[in-house]
């Protein structure tokens, strides 16, 4: 006869994961149930064997240094739009130093004009930060051969692959008939959350489409100013945010986005 509590509660008891009343129940039960007591004793012996085997690896000191220097190195390379912002500041800084009321007025006027006309001079908005993240993810996916976690041209293979890996199920459409074949998918991170990355091909070029859920509602298609030769477009519909990024030309990307939008869920009201 096998005690039904053995498999259910001995591990939780061992790991201190039972609530108080179950813990007390288990302690009483252990005094009378030989099977549970024996099982607990073995689990404890296994734990003791693991504990005395010094299984933890410590990071080599060289790795810490390597990481620190790679973090330092990553900063200028990953913040291109900040660099252009600083150029503008260098132009404005002499005006600041004059400390004339008039100069302040001029500066204020310049700032207002710049704010209105040149979105690029504003501090990085959340959209711009996201655009930079999307771009970085795209470039890295190509450089580090991290392009695909699941390689398949079949949307019915790619979509289920995301189940269990994400807390949402992204819309997956193949556009092979329009010369934008789906080649696979990948997990990625944007803004600290897991997102689905769908990868499409246009001749020799790849298009990354990042998808994650947003609060209901949809927004119109918005084309982001090209950065470092990459075109980017964002939109949302059907409760999902989409960002498409690629080095294909702007017209191709616009065609692609239009086709993809036609296939994905209709506008939710």
């Amino acid at each position: 006869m096998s005690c039904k509590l053995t498999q259910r509660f001995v591990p939780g008891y061992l790991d201190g994961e039972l609530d108080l009343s179950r813990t007390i129940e288990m302690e009483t039960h252990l005094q009378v149930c030989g099977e549970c007591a024996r099982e607990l004793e073995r689990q404890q012996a296994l734990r003791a064997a693991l504990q005395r085997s010094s299984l933890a690896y410590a990071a080599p000191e060289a790795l810490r240094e390597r990481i620190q220097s790679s973090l330092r190195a990553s900063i200028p390379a990953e913040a291109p739009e900040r660099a252009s912002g600083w150029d503008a500041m260098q132009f404005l800084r002499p005006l600041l130093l004059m400390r004339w009321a008039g100069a302040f007025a001029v500066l204020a006027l310049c700032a207002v004009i710049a704010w209105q006309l040149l979105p690029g001079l504003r501090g990085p908005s959340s959209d711009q930060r996201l655009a930079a993240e999307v771009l970085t993810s795209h470039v890295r996916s190509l450089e580090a051969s991290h392009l695909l976690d699941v390689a398949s041209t079949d949307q019915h293979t790619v979509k289920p692959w995301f189940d269990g890996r994400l807390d949402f199920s992204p819309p997956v459409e193949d556009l092979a008939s329009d010369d934008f074949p789906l080649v696979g998918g990948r997990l990625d991170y944007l803004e600290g959350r897991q997102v689905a990355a769908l990868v499409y091909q246009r001749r020799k070029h790849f298009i990354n489409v990042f998808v994650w859920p947003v609060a209901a509602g949809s927004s119109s298609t918005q084309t982001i100013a090209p950065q470092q030769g990459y075109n980017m477009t964002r939109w949302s519909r059907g409760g999902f945010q989409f960002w498409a990024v690629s080095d294909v030309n702007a017209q191709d990307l616009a065609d692609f986005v239009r086709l993809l939008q036609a296939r994905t869920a209709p506008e939710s009201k």
Partner: protein
Amino acid sequence: MPGAATRERFEQAVLPHLDAAYNLARWLTRNEQDAQDVTQEAFLRAFRFFDGYQGGNMRAWLLTIVRNTCYTWLHQNRPPDSAVEFDEEIHSSESSGGADPELQVLASADKETVHRALEELPGIFREVLVLREIEGMTYKEIADVASVSLGTVMSRLARARTRLRQSLGAALGKES
């Protein structure tokens, strides 16, 4: 984008967990050099996502990224783990009374044998044991890191322990 000030904040908050990150990468890749590369890559990723970090359990947040980086890396560089069998049963000892032979095996298991047995477990079992027994994480933390439910954590942990006991029994039974 992360700047120098963010980098300092990141280093103060995240670098203390370097050993945990490296340990997980080392157990998942089973290779020192690969573990170093993966850990470095994971830290760079973590740095990029640091602005989006909402607070909470820093170690679990970092280890989630380390784990995902490991699996992406393994997927591209290694053949998949051999299929995992789902038909294990906990074999309770038939002997009633007298010394429990399995207890003796566990008590006599030496460091190298334990190390090898853990290393040879399939990845999904190895990772829950590493997080639970080496990092001392709670079921909830493990569930977060491995992106699975609490129920899955419990069943994987139970199966991982069963398998580890079986392979220790087999390894040490052979020697004696």
